[in-house]
């Protein structure tokens, strides 16, 4: 396992309604230990995974949204959100949790992990990835 591959985790479903979002996050956290080039994409209802103020007491499930904020500490800092999916759901970047990371190549300056991309740009990102895991 010498060569570094580009892993892209594609998240397409809302959290809590199904287990895919939670179990995708578990793969990302385990995968971070393998020192590969990791990126996450959020599109379709997957954009809801990153929304602020998730409150799950009523549905009796664990609110796992704080875990996304820890991704920067795992060197997972390329988080692409599809613009069209966000807009179609009446959401803007302000509705999403601010996900940050410290850039070691820039004197540990705090930077945003989330990048808004168009569907066409995301297609390009998928095309350039070696391993695309869709959840």
């Amino acid at each position: 396992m010498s060569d570094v591959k580009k892993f892209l985790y594609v998240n397409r479903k809302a959290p809590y309604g199904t287990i895919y979002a939670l179990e995708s996050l578990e793969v990302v956290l385990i995968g971070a230990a393998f020192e590969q080039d990791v990126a996450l994409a959020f599109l379709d209802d997957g954009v809801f995974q990153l929304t602020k103020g998730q409150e799950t007491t009523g549905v009796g499930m664990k609110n796992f949204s704080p875990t996304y904020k820890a991704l920067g500490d795992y060197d997972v800092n390329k988080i692409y959100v599809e613009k069209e999916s966000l807009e179609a759901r009446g959401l803007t970047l302000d509705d999403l949790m601010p996900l940050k990371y410290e850039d070691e190549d820039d004197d540990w300056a705090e930077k945003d992990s989330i990048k808004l991309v168009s569907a066409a740009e995301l297609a390009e990102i998928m095309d350039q990835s070696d391993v695309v895991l869709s959840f």
Partner: protein
Amino acid sequence: MKFSVMISEGPYTHEASDTAYNFTKAALEKGHECFRVFFYHDGVNNGTRLATPPQDDRNIVNRWSELAKEHNLDLVLCVAAAQRRGIADADEAKRNGKDADNIAEGFRISGLGQLIEAGIESDRLVTFGD
């Protein structure tokens, strides 16, 4: 080509496991190499030997076991997903204080690292699910 497969859905409810089986079988018959078949989410339900489908239907679990035997396939059930859904081998059953195990022949239980490794080691990782 060296490929691996990830299956994200359980048997019968969803066609993912059938399609993955047909794909894997066809690829092996064409002389390709399968590094690993990884079962995740409800996909771990493909690995219980307690499944008893009607006799006039395909037996999805046994089919995987037979293919594994024939081609020395590595069928891996994700441990975290398996624990949630009540799929256990003898070690897991003992470790978690359960009174039985139910893993089918030819399957083994291991961690998510096996999925990442499959992605790294294979030319293609093909996923089957929604």
